[in-house]
């Protein structure tokens, strides 16, 4: 029991901080650059990503372990996982619109964008590759999403400040955002070695 909790703690810290999906693994950069212009937007995006990421990893984990591995259909993985995610996003959108309109208004515009968010697909692949149990996959996907949101909100905060700064002409726009990301990544390097 004790070792199990320890393993879960290890997964949380390493997925959220040490191997931060954006700053250490370079996955999910498009929404990171695209959705980080204001803190409010980035929190909405983080919520939507967390929601879909957890759902997608549960569904794909169950499909993988109970259908694909027993039937020997591993080679279909890429195609099926991406279709599962696309369908799931549509389904979530319809359900939210119908039942929880407030939440839908808060994160509705971010949902379609998530289909092609590589972070979601990557987490479903990694959860299967690492051979996690269902509980571990849930914890893993929540912590990855937490790391994603932290990085996104941090960058959004920096970008809001940057708007008031006098940036050299050719560094305006994306270049300065990447320099800020570079500094964030250096900060996150400090977590290296925290988990063996």
């Amino acid at each position, binding site marked *: 029991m004790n070792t199990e909790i320890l393993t879960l703690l290890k997964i949380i810290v390493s997925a959220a901080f040490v191997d931060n999906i954006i700053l250490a693994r370079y996955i999910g*950069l498009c929404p990171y650059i695209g959705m980080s212009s204001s803190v409010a937007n980035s929190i909405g995006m983080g919520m939507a990503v967390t929601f879909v990421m957890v759902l997608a990893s549960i569904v794909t984990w169950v499909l993988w372990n109970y259908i694909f591995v027993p039937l020997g259909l591993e080679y279909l993985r890429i195609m099926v996982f991406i*279709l599962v995610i696309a369908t799931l996003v549509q389904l979530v959108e319809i359900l939210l619109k119908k039942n929880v309109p407030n939440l839908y208004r808060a994160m509705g515009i971010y949902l379609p964008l998530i289909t092609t968010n590589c972070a979601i697909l990557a987490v479903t692949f990694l959860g299967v590759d690492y051979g996690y149990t269902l509980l571990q996959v849930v914890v893993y996907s929540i912590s990855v999403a937490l790391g994603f949101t932290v990085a996104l909100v941090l960058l959004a905060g920096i970008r809001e400040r940057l708007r008031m700064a006098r940036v050299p002409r*050719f560094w305006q726009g994306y270049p300065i955002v990447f*320099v800020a*990301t570079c500094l964030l990544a250096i900060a996150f*390097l400090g977590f290296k070695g925290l988990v063996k």
Partner: protein
Amino acid sequence: MMREFWYHFRNGLLGENPVLKLMIGLCSVLAVSVRVENCLGMGAAVIFVLTCSSLVISLIRNFVPNEVRIPIFIVVISTFTTIVDLVMKAYLPPLSKAMGIFIPLIVVNCIIMARAEAFASRKPPLLAVADALGMGVGYTFVITAIGVVRELFGYGEILSRPVFPRTYQGMMAMILPPGAFLLIGIYIALLNWSLRKVKS
């Protein structure tokens, strides 16, 4: 026809370079560009998937109902990605291992989906192939340009052959994520600067 072919090919190389101008397909660019060898492998994989799926999507563009076009595009793209993934695993295991999860992630590489949606689903096959080749080569060009700098300063080697004297220590920052982010920032700033210079 030939003139149009070259026009669309060149467009992807510079004017609308997918990585530096349109800001798409960034993940794999930064992740894989630690060594030039990996860059060329990734470039070849993207060119293959992009060209084949653009050709197929352009060929079937008149039969695809508008409402379900996105899932159909996804199926086409993921078919070719699966082919690349399995072939690389079988014949180039070290390269496949070095690129890891980024081969299957080609399927969500925004470049391919964006070109399918914006170009291949509207234009005849020949032009779609021209556009795909241009975008693919433009992508490979940028990823290799970043890879050369990172491998040179990070390991002191090019294509795994030593360039600097043995005593060279290697800049860890270039291999680690911060170096990649800084380099792409510098490249975009340089491109902005040179474009401004050409205009004036």
